[in-house]
């Protein structure tokens, strides 16, 4: 660090950081806490911080729904959508970064603009498309929609990473006799691997957490964890204990995954910003 900050500053920034982290993490912590309460404790006013932990909610959740079925669906959709999205985005981002045309900028912005559209706006057409192609409640159907919604972000991220690779290195490859394909696989991909990894991580997380299309396009066969959570907010009334247990079970894997890959993620998301 070039500039030395006074110790009190560092302390204040640290304190602020922790405060924001606690504030952001509180709902998740509260959810995890509630999942270990009995239903009576869960709705007690004032809210109880000290209580007798119980696994009753978990037992009931496991008894009522097949957690592993939903988890496997989510894993399959997240991984599948991410792999297909990368396979499509790498060539697209390569072309945009290294062989730009006059329309490249516009195309990129247009792609991003599709993310600004409220998904509900295209619910009916997408639903009908899925129904008519017999993709309703299938892993393929939801996977395709998840993949397409994330495609703009993935192309954008890869585009930014690829642009950090100096063009002469690829040209050197071409002078050495590499075809476009070899240039991409043997020169570009190894160099952009950290960026591709963080893009993949982000895509997995986005797919995992996606709920709108999950709830609207699946019912039982292909239902992912989002549907699993939703199934516990029943019309007979809210059972916060069970709902929290289900939610905790749904987010736990991705939370652990995110924890272990956070270095890679932060590095990826701030890439280029700190050159």
């Amino acid at each position, binding site marked *: 660090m070039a500039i030395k900050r006074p110790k009190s500053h560092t302390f204040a920034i640290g304190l602020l950081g922790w405060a924001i982290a606690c504030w952001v993490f509180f709902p998740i912590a509260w959810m995890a806490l509630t999942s270990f309460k009995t239903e009576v404790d869960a709705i007690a006013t004032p809210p109880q911080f000290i209580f007798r932990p119980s696994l009753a909610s978990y037992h009931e959740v496991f008894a009522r729904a097949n957690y592993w079925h939903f988890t496997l669906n989510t894993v399959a959709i997240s991984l599948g959508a991410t792999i297909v999205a990368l396979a499509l985005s790498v060539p697209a981002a390569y072309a945009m970064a290294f062989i730009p045309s006059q329309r490249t900028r516009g195309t990129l912005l247009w792609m991003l603009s599709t993310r600004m559209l409220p998904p509900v706006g295209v619910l009916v057409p997408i639903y009908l498309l899925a129904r008519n192609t017999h993709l309703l409640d299938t892993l393929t159907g939801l996977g395709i929609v998840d993949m397409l919604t994330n495609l703009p972000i993935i192309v954008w991220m890869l585009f930014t990473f690829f642009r950090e690779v*100096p063009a*002469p*290195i690829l*040209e*050197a490859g*071409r*002078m*050495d*006799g590499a075809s476009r394909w070899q240039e991409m696989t043997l020169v570009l991909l190894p160099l952009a691997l950290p960026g591709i990894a963080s893009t993949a991580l982000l895509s997995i997380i986005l797919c995992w957490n996606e709920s709108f299309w999950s709830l609207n396009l699946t019912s039982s066969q292909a239902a992912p964890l989002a549907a699993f959570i939703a199934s516990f907010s029943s019309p007979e009334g809210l059972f916060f204990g069970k709902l929290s247990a289900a939610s905790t079970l749904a987010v736990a894997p991705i939370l652990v995954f995110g924890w272990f890959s956070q270095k890679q993620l932060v590095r990826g998301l701030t890439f280029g910003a700190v050159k």
Partner: protein
Amino acid sequence: MATVELRDIRKTYLKDEIIKGVSLTIEDREFVVFVGPSGCGKSTLLRMIAGLEDITAGDLLIDGRRVNDVEPAKRGLAMVFQSYALYPHMDVYKNMEFGLKLAGMPASERSAKIRDVARILQLEPYLHHKPGQLSGGQRQRVAIGRAIVRNPKVFLFDEPLSNLDAALRGQMRVELATLHRRLNATTIYVTHDQVEAMTMADKIVVLQGGVVEQVGSPLELYHHPRNLFVAKFIGSPPMNFIPVVVETSSTESVTVRLPDETFLDVPVDGSNTPAGTALTLGIRPEHVALDEPGLAGQVEIVERLGAATLFHIRLRDGQLLVAQSDGAADHPLDSGVSVGLPPRHCHLFGADGLALAAHARHPLLA
């Protein structure tokens, strides 16, 4: 080995013509340097020869074969980039091996070739280092090695020394010249540094605004610049220019009136320059004769380079003239001095910038 021929090569990029019709023949084993100010199109021209840029119009021939639409690697060229452009994820050995591998050369042959080149370039101890672990000079050598192993017909260099510090640049210049003599390959070298151009080239191509200003040997360009641009661009410190007016002219010589109303008889062909024409007289600093009868002025700045001394002399009419003298020459600051302009070293340029043909050739060029 190989000849390279450019026939009216043009490049248009977004409606702008960057290369405006370049015709040039590069002989076998020749070391040709493209030189010019930044933006003159020299790098674009090199990249067009390499195949990294499309050729909008014209023909590019290598060994008599039209290669406009041939892929870079199939043109039999190798290129050394300004930024070295080594593959950062591969060690030195693999950097050099990459092209050979793609060409399908057997492993044993590859290994023998790479070790041979590594020995020539003194890279043997670094074969298993990544580019990031090497110094600038070593990276440069790896880039050259990567070009050499492919045994190309023509070497292309795009400002290869501009990222190195002055001392290393001088050293690499000698190494490159030695290497060229050893490999005897046709070489095209792009630089904006005229010292590199002068010292290494068999033939210099001066470019400006996408047009070839002059092609010739270094001394040809130095002593017989075709126009004002080349005269200004080649030579350091640059040539001095003085506005003059033609008094009388003949095919034998032109008599011009200097700013101080004295006359000078310059031995150039004046058949198209009638009396009264405004011309520009050019003279190199080392040809300005201090303490000889001529223009009067005052010493304003003295730059002592050791072996030589540069005197910046303010003439009566306010113009600054640079005179180069030996290292021992002594003229105190602000002292009055008279500078002679030896006619045989004077160049005359017309209003169109073109030089009037001199009668005498430089002895080394005769």
